[in-house]
């Protein structure tokens, strides 16, 4: 299995949904899109075997992937959608305040931007208590963490996404969903997976503030400027909720979620399931 399938415990969530239990997930016959993406659904820079299936979140991403030469692309929906389906009957806690996700790059990238300015903007905008969720490597940077803590925000981290099968936190998404369900709003300085997850989990979204350009950001797919052009409805301190819900539904591929048996087929787990039973 490609190690990116393990990021954020995606493979673990899918295995649980597919009825394979909480153990180590079997190898997936394909690449699961591991984050919301304005490209072909795969992470740039990762090596991939040609024509191995891409298991994508949305139909729009599938069309885009096909147009840039990807084949064997199919839509299964985001793993988060599968998690939501598993926890549909969970009691919902009372919601309060905002969970704010300052945009992060991945480990190899470095964000350029002014955290202090962003903190001021958050304070001015958010009506209730604010929880700031930092990406793990920013959370480890005491300087950055202190900035947000000193502003009076609760600072959390959902966990380590894992790398090369090591230290993947299988509960990452569970933790994120639990946090999202505690908040009334979800906000970020960029339109990212977390915003879509938040909308799907019942939060009102907002995208505002300095988008914090990454050093050496890959401009292949148009970057933040394109995101603002293509999804203007999701940008701003207040967003029209029904529109946002509709867009999130499409981007996360909520309607594309398969039942367990079909998911096992799509991930190459069908024969394995027969063996274990």
């Amino acid at each position, binding site marked *: 299995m490609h190690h990116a399938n393990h990021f954020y415990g995606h493979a673990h969530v899918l295995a649980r949904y597919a009825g394979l239990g909480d153990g180590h997930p079997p190898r997936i016959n394909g690449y699961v899109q591991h984050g919301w993406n304005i490209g072909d659904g795969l992470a740039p820079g990762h090596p991939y075997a040609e*024509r191995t*299936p891409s298991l994508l979140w949305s139909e729009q991403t599938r*069309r885009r992937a096909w147009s840039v030469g990807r084949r064997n692309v*199919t839509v299964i929906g985001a793993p988060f959608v599968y998690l939501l389906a598993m926890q549909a009957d969970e009691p919902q806690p009372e919601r309060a305040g905002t969970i704010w996700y300052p945009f992060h790059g991945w480990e190899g990238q470095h964000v350029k931007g002014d955290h202090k300015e962003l903190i001021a903007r958050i304070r001015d905008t958010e009506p209730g208590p604010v929880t700031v969720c930092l990406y793990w490597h920013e959370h480890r940077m005491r300087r950055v963490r202190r900035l947000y803590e000193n502003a009076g925000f609760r600072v959390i981290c959902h966990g380590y996404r894992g790398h090369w099968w090591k230290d993947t936190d299988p509960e990452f998404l569970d933790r994120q969903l639990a946090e999202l369900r505690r908040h009334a709003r979800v906000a970020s300085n960029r339109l990212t997976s977390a915003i879509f997850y938040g909308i799907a989990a019942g939060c009102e979204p907002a995208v505002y503030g300095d988008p914090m350009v990454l050093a050496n950001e890959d401009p292949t797919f148009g970057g933040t400027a394109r995101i603002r052009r293509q999804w203007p409805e999701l940008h701003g301190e207040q967003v029209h909720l029904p529109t946002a819900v509709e867009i999130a539904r499409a981007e996360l591929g909520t309607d594309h979620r*398969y*039942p367990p*048996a079909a998911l096992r*087929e*799509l991930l190459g787990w069908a024969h394995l399931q*027969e063996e274990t039973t």
Partner: protein
Amino acid sequence: MTTETAPAVALPGGEMLSWSDQRGEAGNDPLAALAARLVPAGARVLLAGPHDPALLDALTHARITCLLRGYPDAAAVAGRVDRVLVAGPHGLPPGEEYDVVIAGGGLDAVESVEGARLGWDAALARLVAAVRPGGQLLLRLDNPLGVHRLVAAASWYAGRDDAEWTVGGVLDAHRPANLDQLRVRLAAAGMRAGASYAAYPRPDLTTALLATDQLARRTSSGLFDAVLHDACTSGFGGRFVLADPARLAVDALHAGRAAELAPSWLVVAHRAVDPLTTDERYGTAAVDGDGLPVALVQAGGPGNTVVEVVDGPQGWSWHRPDPGDRTEAAAAPYASREAAFRDPAAPDGPVPDGRLLRSLLLDGCLRRDTTLLRRLLRGYADWLADQAGDGRLTGAVALAGADNLVVAGDRFAVLDPTWRANAPLPVDVVLARTLWRFSAELLTGGYAHPWTSTLDVAGLTVVLGGVAGRDFDRAVVDAAVETEAAVGAAVRGLDADGRVGLDTELRAVTPTDPPPGPGSYQQLREAWLRQREENTRLTALLKWTEDLLTSRERALRRSEAAVNLLSGSLSYKVGRLAITPARLAKRGARAAKRRAVAAIAQKQQDRPDKQEQQ
């Protein structure tokens, strides 16, 4: 002039003494059914040229004269008709007239190699002269641009068969090349063309006659879709063609061109009582063949019963022209233990309107419109569930696949309810069978679709079940394939061994196979491309796996080196010494446990022996 040896056979000159036009693979049962409708009892009928023997069976109530160029063919029908003339068109006695003249093999087959050649127009004129004023002519014309020609592997202009002593084609301006031209020629000859039919699937084999006006109007008709597909698939079975004729015919239907691409046409023409006042003497309704069937269909190909579709105030309905057949069919199915039986009364009742589910699903797959696919498949699954009693389905619903279901809005209906399940089938098995059949057709047909190439037919069936909102696994698909083999065996009349063979055959279908039926160059090439793609994918995957294995082995070596390094360190040795008593104690406890278990087992073994001794 007659011969002394065969008095019923007249040889007026121009006969071909050793020639036969009878071909094993030819047939035209729908024409026989149509003729039975048109010819009144006692009517004088001329059969000009070779015809399917079924036509003679259908016209036993008429007085028949056959005009045949081949003597063996004449001898074969001699005892069954009133008179046989063995000759070309010249052999028709001047002044002799008939109520109905049928040239169901076209005019080429009327002309003999002997004597002067008449050509198309003159041959028509000779036959028209034999139609009494007010009488009818049923004439077939082959289409030089029909589906058969478009998919033919051999060029038409290189004809080398015995029958091709001249190759008549579209370049010959003396013969009509389309329906409009045919109507003009008929009018010029004093006939008014009325109803016309598109005849599929081949010029020499007609298993479906479909009214041309309806074909142009009802371009999305589920009935026409299913009939054309079935006729072309079975009509070209085992033949090598360039492309799938069924696909082409159904595409032509949707483009409103199924009549134009028919392999041949059949026209019902009327001779005016007075050629100068044709229009005044004949009302449009009579001339246009009002009341004639919209379609005459031999479902499943030659050998099966022809059923009609007639138009009425309530829309189209099925009509079986041969009610005597019902009692015969009734006995066998109920007595048998087959998975399916033919309903003796079916098809009967209205023909449901709507588009064929197969075409809708194919369209959804090609356009990757998963929303449409979800709506269709969920609608179908719910429709099945609503009709189920105790989770099981009976009757025609239990057997109807996507090629026999029509959808109008959100309503589903079985198109042809002839075949019914003998025993109730679980809803999931019915759904899985429909989806398995569709998956096999989608994959082997080489259609583009929204899923990955890693799915086999059973896997795609499960995935489509998921699209339908149902969570069934391969065990259900397995039962569905078993049902498919059992139903297929019943429909084809196979014995137990045949059924097992069919089951094995069905399970062996892979996505890189070409589809069964016609051997189409396009589909064979597509199958080869799929195999190549799969090889490319697997090669890339193998290389990736090799690279990954190398990197993981390197990581393992590093870890082993670290472990070795640590196990030689002082802290490791001290730690190991410290836990040695604990390790020894653990080992001792294990040994004690083993001994205790062995002793208990021994005692238990001894006890029964003692009891037996007591």
